[in-house]
């Protein structure tokens, strides 16, 4: 059983404030990233990069790798993503050897908050690392390496699926009941509908997603890369899986039909895949629920508070519904393949019950502290403990901020040779020229704010 005295608790707080943990539990990641995103929206990549705090952390590599990709510096982007991959590999190892993070990390998190832990990428973020590397290698005309990465993508998905299955099996065995005196998750949810947007994470669109890690774009890309290499036995399942994740998508069913009927680009034509990434991933904001109550210990009456904090999605208010794409002067329509707003919501939907339980443990810790300080001498100690609980009990707001909010795709069969691609957003037109030479090509572009960053 965990027992902390008020002195030890305050010492821990001071230690964290003065020396800082490896990860500062008081910092707000979304606030830190705002200036980076703003510079990006203003078209200033170098200043955006300067706003990132350099560190040997997973999040830094993810954000910097994305920035380098937008800067068309694919070698550096791949170096960053390779470093990020190292963290994922360590996570896979911890899953395989059954530790899933060190004991000290777990202790810190249960006492203070999740932010003291090293950041563990969300499932959909993990899958996007090899996906981006694969796209980078395609831009570097290295299709063999691109193939390696896309295989890594679906192997990683299998690992995540195994992990989730084992978690599900374990949770079925565990006692999920909350400690005495605390509400169940369902009760808590129904009691706090006005304080937290539970509808956003329980919407039909969110529940329609198969899970929070498989995305149609990554599998369609796998299909495209295998098709470009002439490996139709691998290309077809890529498209089939994309179709399972994004049903009724005509572009996907057409790709399967093309393989079945051998309707492939001839020596004079190129299948061009236009990958439109828009906006940035939703931010996470900590929402706190502080429930004061009174306990009596002997003759002394103390005010207590249970502090519960949840991460809530904050979607970008920017509108990307009127992006105008034209190829050689002809307007083209892209199709939504992957919506990271929904995937992030699904991730929260699946994980909030666990976060709730962790919060209950912290709340129990708060009560122990407050009762201790209550018996030690009165209401001042109690108040300090309450304040401490509120300050340190904020939810983890970290997320891969520079992921797009959505990925849209357009596939076209064009004649080999020069073509002009124009993208207009918020009245600003951006243009690039491509010279198609092979049978398959990919052009990515990122629309953020009024800016467009092409991959060529």
């Amino acid at each position: 059983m965990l027992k902390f005295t008020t002195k030890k608790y305050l010492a821990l707080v001071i230690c964290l404030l003065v020396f800082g943990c490896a990860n500062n539990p008081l910092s707000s990641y979304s606030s830190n990233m705002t200036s980076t995103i703003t510079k990006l929206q203003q078209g200033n990549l170098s200043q955006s990069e300067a706003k990132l705090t350099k560190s040997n952390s997973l999040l830094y590599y993810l954000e910097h790798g994305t920035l380098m990709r937008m800067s068309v510096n694919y070698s550096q982007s791949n170096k960053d993503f390779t470093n990020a991959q190292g963290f994922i590999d360590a996570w896979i190892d911890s899953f395989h050897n059954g530790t899933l993070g060190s004991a000290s990390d777990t202790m810190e998190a249960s006492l203070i908050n999740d932010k003291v832990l090293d950041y563990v990428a969300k499932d959909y973020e993990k899958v996007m690392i090899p996906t981006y590397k694969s796209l980078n290698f395609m831009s570097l005309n290295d299709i063999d390496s691109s193939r390696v990465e896309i295989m890594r993508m679906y192997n990683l998905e299998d690992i995540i699926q195994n992990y989730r299955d084992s978690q599900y099996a374990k949770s079925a065995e565990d006692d999920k009941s909350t400690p005495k005196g605390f509400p169940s998750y369902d009760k808590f949810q129904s009691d706090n509908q006005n304080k937290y947007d539970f509808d956003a994470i329980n919407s039909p669109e969110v529940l329609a997603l198969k899970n929070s890690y498989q995305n149609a774009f990554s599998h369609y890309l796998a299909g495209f890369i295998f098709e470009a290499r002439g490996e139709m036995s691998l290309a077809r399942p890529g498209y089939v899986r994309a179709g399972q994740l994004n049903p009724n998508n005509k572009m996907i069913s057409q790709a399967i039909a093309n393989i079945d009927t051998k309707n492939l680009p001839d020596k004079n034509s190129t299948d061009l895949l236009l990958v439109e990434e828009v906006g940035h991933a939703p931010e996470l904001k900590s929402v706190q629920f502080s429930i004061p109550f009174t306990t009596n210990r002997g003759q002394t009456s103390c005010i207590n508070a249970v502090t519960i904090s949840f991460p809530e999605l904050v979607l970008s208010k920017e509108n990307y519904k009127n992006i105008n794409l034209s190829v050689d002067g002809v307007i083209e329509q892209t199709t939504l393949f992957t919506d990271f707003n929904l995937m992030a919501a699904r991730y929260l939907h699946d994980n909030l019950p666990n976060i709730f339980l962790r919060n209950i443990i912290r709340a129990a810790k708060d009560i122990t502290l407050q009762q201790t300080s209550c018996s030690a001498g009165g209401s001042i100690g109690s108040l300090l403990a309450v304040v401490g609980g509120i300050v340190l009990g904020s939810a983890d707001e970290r997320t891969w901020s520079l992921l797009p909010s959505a990925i849209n795709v357009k596939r076209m069969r064009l004649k080999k040779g020069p073509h002009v691609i124009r993208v207009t957003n918020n009245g600003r037109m951006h243009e690039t020229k491509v010279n198609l030479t092979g049978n398959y090509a990919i052009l990515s572009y990122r629309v953020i704010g009024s800016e467009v960053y092409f991959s060529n």
Partner: protein
Amino acid sequence: MIKINKGIAMLASLMWLNGCGMTNAPVVGSGKVSYGDTNAVETVNTDFGSTDLNMVAQTMADDLIKTGALNGCKTYTVSAVRNKTDQYIDTETITQSIKTRLMKSNLVTSKYVLSQAQMQNQTDELSRQNNSVLYKDATKMGQMKSAQCRLDGFVSSISKTNADMKDVFYQFNMSLIQVDEGTELWANEKQIRKTKVN
């Protein structure tokens, strides 16, 4: 009592010292990675795996050899086997494994010619030799043998899942087709069922 000849003892000692083909190679690494039996039955999950690959290749090759159907063709090749499942199965691995088993058999007289998937490297090499002034004996173009017959096939699956279990049924079909006539000389199928109970 057993008497040991000194010469035999010395020979035995030398054999022990030199290893005599039983050398224990030094191991580099943490010891956490090890080699396993490639023929071990793999049941990690219900996906198409190494055991399935070996089963399919062995069944098809053995049956093809046993019937002697392949010897009706002077030359043969393998077409790309279509993958109708939703799993990333590299069917070229299956067809190449079948081809290798056929080629290793003394009972098969038919000659294998390169498949379409292998042809690019072949034409690249022919072009390289013929477009270079470095070779006085460059291989002549236009000498390649065509395939009289081809092996073709597909793999499909039916998957069903509920809260308690996942069941996947695989079917691998293969046939030998005479290219000029389009007639089928041989056909076989291999069915595999994999079930995982939650």
